[in-house]
């Protein structure tokens, strides 16, 4: 395996770690906003928290998509 491939594997592994650590944060943030929405005392704040929770769900979905792509990239690199 060439040095270039090794460096690329290292880079992808680092990215996997970054994305992996981010996912539970998005889940946690979503729970936090949903909980805040339930406690909201005004319609405006409830809508805001629900919107933010929706955003976090989108972030999680995007991160999972990226994670899957990175894992595929890593598998491909290890085969070379």
């Amino acid at each position, binding site marked *: 395996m060439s040095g270039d491939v090794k460096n690329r594997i290292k880079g992808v592994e*680092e990215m996997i*770690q970054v994305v992996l*650590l981010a996912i539970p944060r998005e889940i*946690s943030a979503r729970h936090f906003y949903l909980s805040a929405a339930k406690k909201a005392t005004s319609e405006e704040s409830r809508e805001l928290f629900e919107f933010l929770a929706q955003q976090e769900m989108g972030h999680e979905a995007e991160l999972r*998509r990226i994670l899957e792509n990175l894992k595929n990239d890593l598998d491909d690199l290890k085969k070379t």
Partner: protein
Amino acid sequence: MKKSELKSFDGKDGRPAYVVYNGKIYDVSKSDLWKDGVHMGRHKAGEDLSEFISMAPHDKEVFDRVEPVGTIEAEQVDASIERLAVLRNLYQKFHPHPILIHFPIGLFVFGAFMQLLFLLSENRSFEFTAFYAITFGALGVFPAVAAGIFSWWINYDMTFTTIFKNKLAGSIILIISVLFLVPLRFIVPDIALRSDTMSYIYNALIFVNVPVTLFIAYNGGKITWPS
């Protein structure tokens, strides 16, 4: 249509390109934005896009422009996914790993400090204190490691990355160390007082536990505060 059947409508090789939003199926085959079943190089036809819409530069009203061609059948949620979500919620509520790791960290550092005082002063009460601290620290290692592995499973799908490799390696070293130290001290109560090789190893391991524990904790901190 079942969600599992949707995958074949991927827009490739002349196949129709279907996407799902909120349970409705939309045919985007004729859209210039879905050439070969790929949208903006990110989203693929044959997938449910409901969770992605909040990240899109457009709002959900784009689906109003397309007539739905069907609906996705409600399928029973995979029991393992549901169980994982329940466990994840429980973990986030009680967060056992960050609670449990503080016992071995504190007790091993305190135990090493007491052992140092014993070696400097030869006052046996320090040695006893060190032994008790290390014993309780050792008992705390097992639930802390178990909670850490549980967290690694439910939150990170047991994916091996540098941080988790470091934490696992450190934990294995620590477990081996305490499994040696504590029974040895029970069997040979004066082990710390002697001047033989085993005694040197015993004393050295007590101090080695400190950087090993801190190394594990440091890597744990990188999960909480990633850089």
